[in-house]
């Protein structure tokens, strides 16, 4: 399944029946949520009426609150799981039947670390919606990730800063290479012109600055690597054009790194992906289209970067 028209047809024949069932489940969960809130609010009132003081809180309120939270977590969790298996997994299979989907798995931490795309320290790594398989001759895996740095400040409050949120992909690259080459969004040159470029060459955490000849590519990206020739061997003129086109298609910040014979791609999103709506109807086509576009963006990486062309010594 490649086009929106095909998706629309698939949605009407295959997805709508499942969506109707899930929508009933959704409404039940909204009902349970409101009931739970109502219960949580009335419990203290009842407690205060029958018992005075902290005894009432402990005996009535705490069990009620904890019970409500656990019940809602289980109920809504199960609804989300059914949605992912019934809808997201089906869309993945329809795009490419060779791919497998696991709602609760994520790309291994080691890949993320190994990619060297985000050098800021992080200590919380969460992810879901894991897809894996062979696209032609290229092995591909990706998932949604939410990587944060969490700390408690002096007043004991939890502070979290996002290091990366979005889609993270790892694919087998079609050329063999020994070192590391990293392609990052070029913010300094965009803002500061040639001064920015000079500052970039002083960045010691990132290896040598590699100035590429493709002007349009250089405007969008800055390349660091440990070998001037190997970086250009990987980033041929045609690959640079393809990366630029891919970034424009995604319309989001895109980072790539070529390490360990793989290409790692991080596409940043500001919101959560592939989650079902709770307070709005599931039956509309718009969220389905979004799921499809985000999944296709990831799966199309292989074709878009021409990774199935295996004319060099790596098969």
């Amino acid at each position: 399944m490649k086009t929106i028209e095909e998706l629309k047809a698939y949605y009407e024949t295959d997805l709508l029946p499942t969506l109707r069932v899930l929508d009933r489940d959704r409404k039940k969960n909204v009902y349970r949520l409101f009931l739970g809130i109502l219960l949580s609010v009335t419990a203290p009132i009842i407690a205060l009426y029958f018992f005075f003081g902290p005894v009432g809180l402990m005996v009535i309120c705490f069990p009620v609150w904890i019970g409500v939270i656990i019940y809602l977590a289980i109920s809504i969790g199960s609804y989300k799981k059914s949605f992912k298996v019934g809808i997201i997994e089906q869309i993945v299979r329809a795009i490419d039947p060779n791919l497998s989907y696991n709602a609760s798995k994520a790309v291994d931490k080691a890949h993320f670390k190994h990619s060297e795309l985000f050098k800021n320290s992080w200590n919380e790594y969460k992810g879901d919606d894991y897809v894996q398989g062979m696209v032609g001759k290229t092995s591909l895996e990706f998932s949604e990730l939410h990587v944060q740095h969490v700390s408690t400040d002096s007043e004991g409050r939890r502070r979290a800063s996002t290091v990366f949120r979005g889609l993270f992909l790892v694919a087998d690259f079609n050329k063999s290479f020994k070192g590391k080459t990293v392609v990052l969004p070029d913010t300094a040159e965009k803002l500061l012109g040639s001064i920015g470029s000079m500052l970039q060459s002083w960045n010691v955490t990132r290896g040598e600055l590699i100035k590429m000849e493709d002007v349009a590519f250089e405007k969008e990206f800055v390349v660091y690597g440990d070998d001037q020739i190997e970086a250009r061997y990987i980033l041929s003129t045609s690959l640079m054009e393809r990366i630029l086109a891919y970034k424009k298609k995604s319309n989001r910040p895109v980072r790539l790194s070529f390490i360990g014979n793989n290409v790692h791609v991080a596409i940043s999103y500001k919101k959560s992906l592939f989650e079902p709506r709770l307070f709005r109807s599931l039956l509309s086509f718009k969220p389905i289209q979004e799921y499809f576009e985000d999944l296709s963006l990831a799966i199309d990486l292989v074709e878009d970067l021409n990774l199935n062309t295996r004319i060099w010594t790596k098969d």
Partner: protein
Amino acid sequence: MMVVGIVVGVVLLSFALMYNGLVRKKNQVENVFASMDAMLKKRTDLIPNLVSTVQQYMQHERETLNELTEMRAKAVSGQLSADEKIALQNQFSKALGGIMVAVENYPDLKADQNFIHLQSSLNEVEEQISAARRAYNAAVTSYNNAIEVLPTNILASMMNYQRKNVFEISEAERQNVDVKGLFNQ
């Protein structure tokens, strides 16, 4: 007095930084040229294998194959000047390009496992040569810029640093690009 001392110190420091910068850029050019030379040699080394794999099939290209063998002998003899080396490598590119295009007429050869393996090696080496050329041009451009802009151009002329030439892509190279298009079918 102190102010004069500081000014002199700053001037000397700038001189040292500029001098070092120029030397680094000159060395980078030589470094990349050496790597490119190594890759060109890799390609030359593939020639005997190519000729022996191909000659049983390609009856009509005997002449070109003999040329290739002769050119290789010349390259290996080590008696060429830098300019002659470059001219020879350009001839190599042209001859190899011609052979690869002619292969399209010999389906048996195209299916031969030895040839397929050889083709990947050649593609890889061509890609590396192309990368080395681009890296060389980048190094030369950086060097040329440094010896021509103010204020480093003053120091550069004192050090007698001359402008270097970038590698022009010869017509043969352009043909090579078309050959890759054939492989992608």
